[in-house]
């Protein structure tokens, strides 16, 4: 048997509280040594369950109901813990999803890598220290001798992910499972790390299974892809073939929804000539005081203007100052320098009370729809809250307004009665948008509005936002790290890097003919480019 | 190397195994045989002191009885005063001058001689201390003492400024014991913590408050009083006293044989008694001289108990027989008077203390207290409710009385207080019923409780009597105090006891019997007149 992995008709279900959920329903695939396979799917597709099963690390509530799951020729579907343990590390390695929480915070990273080496080479392995340094160097960490003694919290996310790769490599496995390996990282970092991982794996002839929701990642990196949906494989094959000629409707839908592939809808152009800007930043800067008289310059010299009915996007990676600028616009932070005007009115030094009337015209849609709604409030309570706070409507009128808002965000009125936990992520974001629209604002500030959502849901929300703009003539300030999202919504783009403006201008011009190197880097880092370009 | 070590340890074990049986029967047992272990209940935490003059805590007086000695002793059977450190004495006809002829062979444990000067030092030091702290307990024994005259090295005359018929008995108590002059050179605080040097058969080795104390035998002791059978050195070499507040732990220690004498303040309950007897313990009992455990009413300020009929109804409503058998045991004596039976001049009150619910109900009905719907009695819309102040946690006995009174429609409110609050309430008269007791083998002790002129709490003493009765009682106290013949004393105290019961001014509840359980090892446990033990008579068998 030359298959490194051979999965036949695998069925896994979760049992908790008397309920049974079938997570994987008859999945079959195989993997050759040295091959790269991408398992693609949205949340709930069962892709993570498959990865856990391959590692023999299914949670105690999971049960393998049937099928065969062979790793390196050994069926581990009903194997003992001991035999599964022997496979882990030395046959199958793992690069986990979120590097921020996947390293033990109380052990130095050198020790954590060393642990894998000791498992591989035995307790008295003499080359331990040298190997740790070598691995750190190989995964691209500067100054390995210093880093080995540091703790995870002293490292950036990208570096932590590299350490995790080093840990996986230390066991010299035949297969590495990378579970959404870079979704928590900035795009440029994401690209560099994936490139690095790919190169390391290739050089050692290690097979790679990438678990991802991102079609772009799959398209760029995999030899073969497996598209999963609700526990079943809908399509599989050579990556290039699947993406160029998807046979299943779901794959087609996914491709259509993914902004990186082809037909991204473009924003409706808006005539702004002669109009007065709604929101205006004039050389705005923000300094935060640090202990011991030090300062941190979060934002420097930002000037921008948002016109009614238009979308301005602020793009940047973490630490770029894009959130700070949003908070300044909302009056949650005071600018250290420069002026901020809303509808001609200076809002820089306004107190909470003075700002309050303006809030009717300016609302925020937050990043994480899962935390943006009070878990105890019904949808109705959440949606009408601003109306109640401002005392605008009462009784039946309030109820009618709620129905209308639900219509606007395309949710059935019966959902008004639901609690947030009874809604999906996309539905929650619609509720959050409805709440923001309740006061009929002129300007909506969108803070990464779709980053927490699945690809197909992202597309729907973006559609909704575009339609609302056309319908209501509301202006948007969109803050995002995702250039594809920006491209589908923005008229104007500001690119920020470490608090400084890198590039600024018409969206078409900035995204299609970037003048600055950083902007180009950002664009290239968007997954799926390789395939799209090719 | 390793083997060597193993061999070595095996050898040590072997050696231990061989030597242990060889030495154990002789040495440790001989040591144990002359050590007596006593477990009392808790130490006095209010007044930390074993200075004989200050001590009222009877557990301390038990110990002191065997460390320090007095001029005279008292016969436990007859109550007669008999010679001890004084061979004989004369009392002047006006009972103001007491001339004591001292033994000449007595020394204190520090080597100092016992002589007239030592006695004078003792009495004068005590007088000085009483002047400084008039509240101290010994002051009542010393009442009336003016000065001492040394007639010769072994004859001393103690002169009183006013009559004190109890003075001779006072000279037999631990409180007026004669300490070595060295003790009086030390401060009262030092004496309180153990600097007590006496002429007794034992010496205090150390005293740790709330933990325990240790006595060791004094060699060359030759001057025991007639009460003691053993005229020479004590049989025991060591006595270890520990204070164990938890009853079940104390009992357990005794049952396990870790303690030879189990000596709690409160008599044994029936179940404990049976348990102890099943385990071959001997129960030693003696009524403590002094007032019985009485309740004292507050008859003033138009309180409910101002009505003599109500007081007498309470007197009849208490089932003393049932109290004795329920709270303690079937064999427990039923209280029969104001004093416990061991007090000289005790007079039985016979049927006056009998349980008579019908009589009580009739008295209450006649007094206008009628039963209400809730089975309590009411008069003019006011409930027959009596406040009974307790110093510390209630006992089962208190609750039993509460229920007995409830059956007659009298509500008894048990008010648990700290000793401080209790004392304050007594002084302020904020009570209907309260209690107090003192131990001394002379009826004069009642003056420290019920004679407003010399009582610890004059308010309590005054409140006990209806206004008209107070002078009568004081006359009787005076008659008892100034009496020069036993007959006069008997008459005065007899009348006083009758008066207190007939007036309902003292409501006896139970006889204050002191019980100790002694293990099979302990031989010849005997009580002194005041309810203490002659520890130099005790022997322990292996």
């Amino acid at each position, binding site marked *: 048997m030359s298959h490194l992995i051979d999965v036949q008709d695998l069925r896994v279900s979760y049992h908790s509280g008397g309920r049974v959920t079938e997570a994987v329903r008859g999945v079959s695939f195989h993997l050759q040594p040295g091959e790269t396979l991408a398992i693609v799917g949205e949340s709930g597709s069962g892709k993570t369950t498959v990865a856990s099963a391959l590692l023999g690390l299914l949670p105690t509530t999971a049960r393998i109901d049937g099928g065969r799951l062979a790793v390196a020729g050994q069926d581990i579907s009903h194997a003992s813990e001991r035999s599964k343990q022997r496979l882990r590390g030395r046959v199958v390695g793992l690069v986990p999803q979120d590097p921020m929480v996947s390293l033990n915070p*109380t052990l130095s990273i050198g020790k954590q890598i060393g642990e894998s080496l000791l498992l591989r080479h035995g307790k008295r392995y003499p080359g331990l220290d040298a190997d740790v340094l070598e691995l750190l160097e190989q995964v691209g960490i500067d100054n390995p001798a210093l880093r080995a003694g540091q703790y995870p919290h002293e490292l950036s996310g990208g570096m932590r992910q590299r350490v995790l790769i080093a840990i996986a490599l230390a066991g010299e496995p035949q297969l590495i499972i990378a579970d959404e390996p870079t979704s928590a990282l900035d795009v440029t970092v994401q690209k560099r790390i994936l490139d690095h991982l790919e190169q390391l794996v290739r050089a050692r002839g290690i097979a790679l299974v990438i678990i991802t929701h991102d079609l772009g990642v799959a398209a760029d990196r995999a030899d073969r892809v497996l598209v999963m949906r609700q526990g079943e494989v809908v399509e599989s094959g050579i990556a290039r073939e699947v993406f160029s000629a998807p046979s299943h409707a779901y794959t087609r839908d996914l491709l259509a929804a993914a902004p990186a592939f082809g037909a991204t809808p473009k924003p409706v152009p808006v005539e702004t000539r002669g109009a007065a800007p709604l929101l205006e930043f004039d050389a705005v800067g923000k300094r935060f005081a640090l202990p011991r008289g030090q300062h941190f310059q979060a934002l420097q010299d930002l000037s921008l203007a948002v016109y009614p009915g238009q979308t301005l996007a602020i793009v940047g990676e973490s630490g770029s100052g894009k959130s700070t600028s949003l908070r300044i616009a909302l009056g949650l932070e005071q600018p250290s320098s420069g002026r901020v005007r809303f509808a001609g009115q200076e809002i820089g030094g306004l107190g909470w009370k003075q700002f309050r009337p303006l809030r009717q015209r300016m609302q925020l849609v937050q990043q994480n729809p899962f935390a943006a709604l009070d878990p105890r409030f019904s949808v109705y309570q959440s949606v009408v809250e601003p109306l109640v706070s401002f005392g605008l409507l009462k009784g039946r009128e309030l109820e009618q307004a709620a129905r209308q808002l639900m219509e606007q965000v395309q949710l059935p009125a019966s959902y008004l009665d639901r609690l947030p936990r009874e809604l999906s992520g996309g539905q929650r974001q619609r509720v959050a948008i409805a709440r923001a629209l309740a006061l009929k604002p002129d300007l909506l500030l969108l803070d990464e509005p779709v980053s927490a959502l699945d690809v197909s849901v992202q597309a729907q929300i973006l559609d909704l936002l575009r339609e609302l703009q056309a319908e209501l003539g509301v202006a948007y300030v969109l803050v995002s790290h995702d250039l594809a999202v920006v491209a589908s919504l923005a008229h104007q783009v500001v690119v920020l890097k470490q608090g400084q403006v890198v590039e600024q201008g018409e969206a078409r011009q900035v995204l299609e003919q970037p003048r600055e190197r950083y902007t180009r880097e950002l664009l290239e880092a968007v997954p799926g480019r390789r395939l799209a370009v090719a | 190397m390793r083997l060597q070590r193993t061999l070595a340890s095996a050898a040590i074990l072997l050696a231990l195994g061989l030597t242990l049986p060889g030495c154990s029967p002789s040495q440790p047992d001989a040591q144990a045989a002359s050590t007596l272990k006593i477990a009392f209940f808790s130490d006095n935490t209010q007044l*930390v002191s074993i200075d004989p003059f200050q001590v009222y805590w009877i557990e301390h007086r038990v110990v002191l009885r065997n460390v320090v000695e007095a001029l005279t002793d008292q016969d436990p059977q007859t109550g007669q005063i008999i010679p001890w450190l004084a061979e004989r004495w004369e009392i002047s006809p006006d009972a103001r001058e007491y001339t004591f002829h001292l033994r000449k062979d007595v020394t204190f444990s520090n080597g100092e001689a016992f002589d007239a000067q030592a006695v004078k030092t003792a009495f004068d030091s005590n007088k000085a201390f009483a002047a400084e702290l008039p509240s101290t*307990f010994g002051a009542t024994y010393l009442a009336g003492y003016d000065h001492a005259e040394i007639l010769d090295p072994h004859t001393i005359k103690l002169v009183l400024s006013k009559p004190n018929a109890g003075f001779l008995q006072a000279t037999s108590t631990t409180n007026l014991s004669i300490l070595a002059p060295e003790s009086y050179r030390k401060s*009262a605080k030092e004496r309180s913590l153990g600097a007590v040097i006496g002429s007794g058969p034992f010496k205090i080795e150390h005293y740790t408050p709330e933990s325990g104390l240790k006595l060791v035998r004094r060699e060359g002791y030759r001057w025991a009083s007639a009460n003691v059978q053993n005229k020479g050195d004590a049989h025991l070499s060591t006595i270890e006293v520990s204070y164990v507040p938890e009853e079940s732990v104390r009992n357990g220690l005794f049952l396990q044989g870790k303690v030879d004498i189990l000596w709690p303040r409160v008599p044994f309950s029936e179940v404990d008694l049976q348990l102890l007897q099943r385990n071959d313990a001997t129960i030693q009992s003696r009524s403590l001289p002094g007032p019985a455990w009485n309740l004292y009413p507050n008859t003033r300020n138009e309180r409910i108990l101002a009505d003599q009929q109500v007081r007498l109804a309470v007197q009849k409503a208490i089932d003393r027989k049932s109290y004795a058998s329920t709270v303690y045991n079937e064999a427990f004596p039923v209280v029969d008077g104001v004093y416990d039976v061991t007090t000289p001049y005790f007079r039985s009150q016979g049927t006056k203390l009998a349980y008579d619910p019908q009589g009580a109900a009739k008295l209450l009905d006649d007094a206008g207290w009628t039963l209400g719907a809730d089975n309590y009695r009411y008069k003019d819309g006011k409930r027959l409710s009596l406040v009974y102040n307790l110093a510390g946690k209630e006992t089962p006995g208190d609750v039993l009385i509460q229920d007995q009174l409830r059956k007659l429609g009298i509500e008894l409110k048990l008010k648990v207080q700290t000793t*401080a609050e209790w004392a304050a309430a007594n002084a302020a008269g904020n009570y209907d019923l309260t209690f107090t007791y*003192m131990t001394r083998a002379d009826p004069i002790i009642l003056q420290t409780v019920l004679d407003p002129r010399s009582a610890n709490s004059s308010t309590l003493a005054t409140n006990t009597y209806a206004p008209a009765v107070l002078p009568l009682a004081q006359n009787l106290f005076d008659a008892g105090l100034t009496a020069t013949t036993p007959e006069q004393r008997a008459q005065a105290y007899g009348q006083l006891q009758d008066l207190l019961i007939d007036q309902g001014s003292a409501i006896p509840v139970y006889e204050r019997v002191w019980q100790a359980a002694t293990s099979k090892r302990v031989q010849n446990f005997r009580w002194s007149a005041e309810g203490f033990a002659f520890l130099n008579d005790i022997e322990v068998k292996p």
Partner: protein
Amino acid sequence: MSRYLLGRIAQAALVLWGAYSITYLILYLLPGDPLSIMLSASGMEIDALSPEQLAKARAFYGLDQGLLERYVNLLLGVLQGDLGQSLTLNRPVTEILAERLPQTLALAGLAIVLSLIGGVGLAYLAAYVRWQPLKVFLARLPALGFSVPVFWMGLLLIQVFAFGLGWFPATGSVGFESLVLPAVTLAIPSAAVYAQVLQRGFIDVWREPYITTAFAKGLSRAQVQARHGLRNAALPLLTLIGLQVGNTVSGAVLVETIFARNGVGRLVQEAVLRQDIPLVLAVVTVSAAAFVLVNLLVDLLYPILDPRITHAPKVT
């Protein structure tokens, strides 16, 4: 670092002073005149004395000062290391404490050690065991541990281990053996708290992704638990140990009464009843100082156990 330390010590001193003052205030509000207690202690009551005699007695006990005057004097004394004179025991408080404190320290010390061993051991076992009935049983055991009144547990232990089996002495203050039962009694509630918190810690840590990372390395369950689970799960425990100091003192009051041990706990209980203000103040100050000190130590120890926490500004 030193600046942090100074601030932290100042804060500790402030807390100590607060504890002292609150206690003084409460004690001063106690009903009844301390004099009448002391007089009644020696068999005499206050109404039996003439005013001159009263004044004399008041001066004898040093009670002729006002509320504030006495407070200031006591506080000044404390600052000079003099805790004053016990009103009823006739001795300097420092002397009494020197005599009683070792007893309680030994008891509390052993109890803390036992409770840690017991609590951590139980939680560790509960986290390791996978047979569900046993796991559930072990998980519920701590709740039982602090559902039982301390004094009752003490009496039961005495009945079983002292009187029934005869393994340990029931009372006494001599030797290590007499320390075992009281320390176990005192340790049980704390151990239960530790076990429960640690169990919760294990449950939380067990869900952490780094545990998956550790498993994926090929470590066995026991290795994962020992190397990656325990330390992270035990971090909340450290704070708790500091907080348990107060409970241990409270427990000592009961335990020392039951086991007839001569420690500070019993001393202070009786001192409260006697209104021996200097003595109570001293004991409260000492136990508050212990509390503050232990918590200070915990704070300083934290960075060693958890590298994420640092009191020094980061040097980058």
